[in-house]
């Protein structure tokens, strides 16, 4: 065989024959099957079961049809769950928009500074990841407390601009939705900046020069050229922030308002405190479907964009 003559094709021939190639290709699928699909099926199955005084604390019905959809019916009927879903989406949406408004100029700035500065600034964007996430959330609890310099400073700043008889002593920040959004924006900002930077960095600066040359002022150039061409980056960053933010558990648990919980906390409470695993599973499945649709829309958009790119070559 010719492929046995030259060492490279000989190696690849060996690679194909011995099945290493199939194994290599199969690895991610096996991984996804074992650690995503199987657990997902278990959760879906659990959501169709009933609670039981055993371990694990659920059981299927004794007779046909063995499953029931009561959990999902309760989900849509119970005010607590509906409000938790709405709060989650509301908080996640606000956090996403704020991340975009803060992150876009930062990402754009990263593409414009000289390369030496760029690596330093990129480093600073990634640096918070080197500290424990939990530790950073606790740090925010300290910062937001009524006796902290941050709270006092903010209070003084607001008191300085509002009429004197409206003045107040401190701001109640911890245990509010405001705190949840603030800490989520802080935590997820890098997930907005990095995909946006990757997108903006690839844009051809000559296009901006061409638009300037054709009479557009810098703001018009941004609106007409940079912004429309960075839509894929905005979508990628938006999803990377919105999806984890809507299922966030730790931040609302530590700084959020307990009477207005987010869905992650509801799932957690159902699992641990209420020991109602089927209900918790039903909430998790519902959340997954709510998040899967925007994700699918994005994948569809990406595939279309790539097909367009290919057609251009």
């Amino acid at each position, binding site marked *: 065989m010719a492929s046995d003559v030259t060492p490279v094709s000989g190696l690849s021939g060996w690679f194909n024959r011995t099945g290493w190639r199939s194994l290599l290709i199969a690895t991610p699928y096996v991984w996804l099957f074992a650690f995503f699909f199987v657990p997902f099926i278990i959760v879906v199955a659990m959501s169709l079961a009933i609670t039981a005084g055993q371990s694990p604390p659920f059981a299927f019905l004794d007779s046909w049809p063995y499953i029931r959809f009561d959990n999902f019916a309760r989900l849509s009927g119970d005010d607590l769950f509906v409000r938790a879903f709405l709060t989650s989406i509301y908080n996640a949406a606000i956090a996403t928009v704020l991340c975009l408004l803060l992150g876009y100029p930062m990402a754009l700035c990263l593409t414009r500074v000289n390369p030496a500065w760029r690596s330093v600034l990129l480093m600073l964007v990634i640096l918070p990841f080197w500290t424990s996430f939990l530790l950073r959330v606790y740090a925010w609890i300290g910062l937001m407390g009524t006796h902290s310099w941050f709270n006092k400073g903010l209070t003084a700043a607001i008191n300085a601009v509002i009429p004197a008889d409206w003045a107040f002593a401190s701001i109640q920040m911890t245990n509010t939705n405001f705190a949840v959004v603030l800490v989520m924006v802080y935590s997820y900002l890098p997930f907005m900046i990095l995909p946006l930077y990757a997108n903006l960095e690839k844009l051809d600066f000559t296009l901006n*020069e*061409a638009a300037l040359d*054709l009479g557009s002022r810098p703001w018009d150039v941004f609106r007409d050229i940079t912004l429309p061409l960075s839509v894929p980056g905005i979508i990628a960053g938006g999803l990377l922030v919105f999806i984890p933010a809507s299922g966030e558990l730790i931040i609302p648990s530590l700084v959020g308002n307990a009477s207005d919980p987010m869905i992650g906390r509801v799932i957690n409470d159902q699992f641990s405190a209420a020991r109602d695993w089927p209900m918790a599973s039903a909430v998790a499945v519902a959340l997954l479907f709510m998040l899967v649709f925007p994700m699918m829309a994005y994948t569809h958009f990406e595939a279309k964009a790539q097909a367009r790119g290919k057609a251009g070559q």
Partner: protein
Amino acid sequence: MTATTPHPSAPEPKAPFIRIEAVSKTFGDFVAVDNVSIGIEKGELFALLGGSGCGKTTLLRMLAGFDAPTSGKIFIDGQDMAGVPPYDRPVNMMFQSYALFPHMTVEKNVGYGLKHDQMSDAERQDRVRQMLDLVQLTPLAGRKPHQLSGGQRQRVALARALAKQPKVLLLDEPLGALDKKLREHTQFEIANIQYKTGITFVVVTHDQEEAMTLACRIAVMDKGIVRQIGTATEVYEYPNSTMVAGFIGSINMFEGEVAQCTEESTIISVPKLGMAVAAKADRRMQPGMKITVAVRPEKIAISREKPEGAANALAGQVQDLGYFGKDSLYRVKLPTDTLLSVNSVNARRGGENERVAQWEDKVWLSFDPSSAILLTE
């Protein structure tokens, strides 16, 4: 610069439309453009010609307003351009990469520059249609740039830059990305559009053929300095330096010493040719001056017999031979071991058998005294 009769298409001399006055541009220690002064007439097609890094693109970017001169001034139509941003200049540019907006159709690309102009929608649509007609792209108005071929993109870029009817159009390597056949066609098209619109064109190119066919006048640049400004004929036939002579076309150059100057001729002894070259009388020459003698390959005649009465005749042997179809290049070795390039048109059909000489053949070379270019720098 050697004074000659002006190119027929060169406009009448008056106050130049674009005045580049003692412009320099430095990037750190690097001098990109060094004290350049050029006057470009209204309606002229002017070329900046030079190798990469010669400063021609930097000069173009300063005209467009993307870079500011470190020193010196640029005037366009009498207006000082210092501090005028690109969007306020009466100048448009066609970029080397075309820089078409990928998310806009051909029509939107061409109409983009008109957004900020004071005109009605009907006028705007009219202008876009006119421009698309001019570059023959009307049927493709709804396409996106990635659905076009290279030549079509080039024409969209040209139409977009022309749509605002600028006073000056800057073209950065306009034919650089096109294949040879398309280049030949397009360069005439560009010259044609320039003639029709009457807009002043400034073309940057590294391709001397492109510069020579397109431009009324050419500025030859090297290391940030303008070496010569003149018509295609002037820079080709009357180069003012060995740099220009060597950059434009191919040439045989030899060092020599002026032996004798008379009313009729200049005699230069050229050791590498093993002979004294007779050239036309030249007032700059003094006996004893060290100069360079240059002869274009196509100015040298090649024959089997010794040419009768030729002022400059040399014997040699064909060492190398290249057949290019319309002409052949002979590399002839002289008794002094010097190689001389000679171009000869293949006027008769038949290839090898009809050629003047073959490999190893003994031949005679001759050239007229007027063909010898004498260069002092």
